[in-house]
């Protein structure tokens, strides 16, 4: 299977701005490989280093050491981001734009030809069910609609790799189901999806493979079915066990 995303010996440190405070290590010696067409769940409690890893993949933060590549290109090169779509957690888009204008703007960045842009806008707005609100300014959208607008912008360039940071965060059950359906549809189209989530039931349903991160270290990685069989437990129990959580009697 062709490798879409690879991370080798990644270390991410943040220097504290306060005097006397030590450097914080967000990610240490992380190795990961995601193959083409896989839906990969990137799990961990808050502060585990998931967002730091994603920030490196997207070029927002330079790695302290190690390398990360997307389609074989170093993530520090902007061209590495030509074939990816990214949905951040709870992002507010330009509220003074309509969904249609927002998508046209992003399509312009990818230098998609005009005729194709209009086709892509129609297709993604239909996919995320925002076609009826395409001419309304984003400031009039509900939270769920904004999240779907975010998903639409992540799909405008017909990406081969989607990086989703907690895509169902803050959505109602119907919204979550719709996002799940979209991920499954993308998988059936052969797209690679790399996403972080705290909804372990959802991850169990959707993902082919998962990695569990805790305090910047990779605790386990493997196929969901293999992990469930190995541990004879559901993903939530495996997760809690690996991060050393013991419930109080």
């Amino acid at each position: 299977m062709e490798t879409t995303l690879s991370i080798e010996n990644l270390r991410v440190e943040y220097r504290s701005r306060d005097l006397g405070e030590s450097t914080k290590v967000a990610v240490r010696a992380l190795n990961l490989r995601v193959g083409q067409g896989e839906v990969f769940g990137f799990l961990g409690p808050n502060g585990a280093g998931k967002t730091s890893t994603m920030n490196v993949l997207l070029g927002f933060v330079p790695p302290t050491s190690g390398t990360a590549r997307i389609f074989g290109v170093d993530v520090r090169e902007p061209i590495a981001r030509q074939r990816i779509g990214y949905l951040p957690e709870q992002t507010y888009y330009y509220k003074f734009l309509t969904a249609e204008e927002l998508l046209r703007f992003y399509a312009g960045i990818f230098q998609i030809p005009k005729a194709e842009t209009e086709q892509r806008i129609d297709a993604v707005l239909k996919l995320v069910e925002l076609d009826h609100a395409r001419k309304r300014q984003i400031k009039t959208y509900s939270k769920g609609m904004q999240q779907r607008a975010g998903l639409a912008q992540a799909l405008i360039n017909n990406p081969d790799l989607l990086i989703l940071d907690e895509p169902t965060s803050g959505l109602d059950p119907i919204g979550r189901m719709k996002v799940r359906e979209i991920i499954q549809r993308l998988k059936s189209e052969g797209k690679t999806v790399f996403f972080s989530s705290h909804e372990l039931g959802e991850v169990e349903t959707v993902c082919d493979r998962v990695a569990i991160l805790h305090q910047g270290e990779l605790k386990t990685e493997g196929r969901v079915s293999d992990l469930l069989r190995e541990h004879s437990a559901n993903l939530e129990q495996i997760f809690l066990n690996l991060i050393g959580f013991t419930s109080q009697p």
Partner: protein
Amino acid sequence: MNTVWALANVVVLEMVRRKDFYVLFILTVLLTGTAGSVNLFNDRSIVRYLKEICLLLIWVSGLVIAITCTARQIPAEREHRTIFPLLAKPVTRAQFLLGKFLGCWLATGLALALFYLFFGLVSASREHSWPVANYLQAGWLHWMMLGIVIAFTLLGSIVFAAPSSNGTICFVCSAGMLLLGRHLNKVALSLAEPLQSLLYGLYFVLPHLELFDVRDLIIHNWELIPWGVVALATLYAAAYAAFFLFAAWLIFRRRALN
């Protein structure tokens, strides 16, 4: 270049859809209209004073629009987290800064065009003449000057996190250069060393924004400035704007976004 245009287009759309510009424009219209309707002592030369007041209003409004529009660009992108989906696309940090600069500069240019058009109409109605070339030169040099201010404010928005503090600092610096820039060398003469050399150094290094203030061309209907001088002034503005943008890029290119 497509990316830079796409970014600039969003900035212009933002200004068109926000209320601040309209408030400033309506305020200028009201003040100009009120001043223009006054006929003091049947003095025909009163028109010149009115023109002076109205042009001052346009200059202050231009500075306010340029600085407030630019100062909020990058902090707003970070606060609303719109910078993340944007820079997750094949956009370099240099393109991001250039797009923001171009957008703010074009938006300010549109606002200036509207202000000068309105002022020209009011002025022509009182004087029954409209020296278009004078308006073009004065407006063009005004716009070039604001290009330097916008690039400087963009640099400030990377150094200072709060748009309000950046806006205040940039406004004070710009107004200071406009009012005191030409006198710095004279002040330096009255000082002891090493302050004298320091102030002289600043006199030669800082951009002389006051060179672009040719309001008298319109107020007194002076003869046109040679077009070669206008071209040189344009190059002078471009060089300073490029310097500030380069400094902004040096700071921003490796800044972690998290």
